[in-house]
């Protein structure tokens, strides 16, 4: 990916050093749990109060992979239509997306297709996507089956997890998988496909069935 080179370690002071910086976005309908999910991952906290996000916000978290420091800049977006202009402006530089729906909310699942189209319209071709069916702790109120979630993910070419920000289920795993996918894509494109680094049109990862899983990751 073109972005990786200029993101390499531009920090100066001690804590600012990192080997790579990945920009990730969390998108999906309002109230599916995007903010809670990020809170759980970055601060290991959860609150049942619903404060609708205004516009956009972000948190930073550093992860380690193969002795490299990867700084994750994770953008939390507001799901409501009125913020569409401001949120889509941030799609451009994103290397990964967590597209979230709520397993107790049919409408939020129905909107996944639209969100996916938004990604295709506004982000790079190589952006990686994980579909997350959140609130899987609420089994009693479930209206979207695991199978329909998995099937849709397959059709869209995304990875899939059911998650719970409340009970801390698959939160870390979702982010780790997304980071792996980005790393895989990076090494793949740097090794084999010079067109990708120059941003030339190339086969979309999302067009092929399951994403390639290479063990080696050069980051």
């Amino acid at each position, binding site marked *: 990916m073109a972005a990786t080179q200029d993101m390499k370690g531009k920090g100066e002071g001690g*804590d*600012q050093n990192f080997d790579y910086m990945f920009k990730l976005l969390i998108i999906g309908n309002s109230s599916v749990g995007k903010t809670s999910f990020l809170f759980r991952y970055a601060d290991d906290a959860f609150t049942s109060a619903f*404060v*609708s996000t*205004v*516009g*956009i*916000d*972000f*948190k*930073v978290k550093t992860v380690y992979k193969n002795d490299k420091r990867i700084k994750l*800049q994770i953008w939390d977006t507001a799901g*409501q239509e*009125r*913020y569409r*202009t*401001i949120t889509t*402006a941030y799609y451009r530089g994103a290397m990964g997306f967590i597209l979230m729906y709520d397993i107790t909310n049919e409408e939020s699942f129905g909107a996944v297709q639209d969100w996916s189209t938004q990604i295709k319209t506004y982000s790079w071709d190589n952006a990686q996507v994980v579909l997350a069916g959140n609130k899987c702790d609420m089994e009693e109120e479930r209206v979207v089956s695991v199978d329909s979630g998995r099937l849709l993910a397959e059709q869209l070419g995304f990875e899939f997890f059911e998650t719970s920000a409340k009970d801390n289920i698959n939160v870390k795993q979702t982010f780790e998988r997304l980071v792996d996918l980005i790393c895989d894509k990076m090494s793949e494109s740097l090794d084999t496909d010079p067109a990708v680094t120059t941003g030339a049109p190339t086969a979309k990862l999302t067009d092929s069935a399951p994403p390639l899983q290479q063990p080696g990751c050069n980051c």
Partner: protein
Amino acid sequence: MGPSVAKPNDFIPLFIDCISAASSRTQEYLLFKDPEDKLHPSFELFTHVFLMTYISQSVSLNLTDTFNCTAMTPGQRILLGADWVWALMEKPSRNPRLQIAVQVLHLQEKEDTEENTALPDICSETMQMAQQESSNKNMYEKLVDFCTSIGKDCYALFLFFGKKNDKGNIYGVLSNNFEVAIGKCNKIDRGFIENFFKGSRYLHTPSGMMQALVTKKEQDPITLMIKFS
């Protein structure tokens, strides 16, 4: 949910209640003069006093479901230029019917040379990152951009905690049309906003401001000067 407000505009007296509480408390602090000159409260303190008073009053009046107030995170303040956002909520959908994004401007004895006077401390890593990520526009322009990106039902309100010749009062300039000015003079700065008060323009009360907003036609541009205290 609390007892719902019967008529759509019934929230206005409650809002005014919260505003007066917040303004008068803030005024006390704005006018405070330490006889020994040892206390130098930060600008942020005044903003917090205003917000804390406003929020506790609106919670006790059960106003928050109808007219809510969201304080921005430090990152959002840099990205969006807003200190907090007020929203009049549509009842069933909980979508905002109108929003007012507020940026507080503090009285500056000596004019800062830099444009970004209203900037929060850029100390933490997150703040530095937010700064890098956001456009190179100043804080005033960021607020206007944010409101413009939402639409004509989102108003930018620059709230002056004290003015040059009146240090103890709170004034505001509200508009959903500042972007027109960007087009004309290619830059919004403090002088540009202060200019709205020059001449003998009419000053609205907070209640008059709110009445004007809820009765105006949707896409109409509006610009108001308000005295809050």
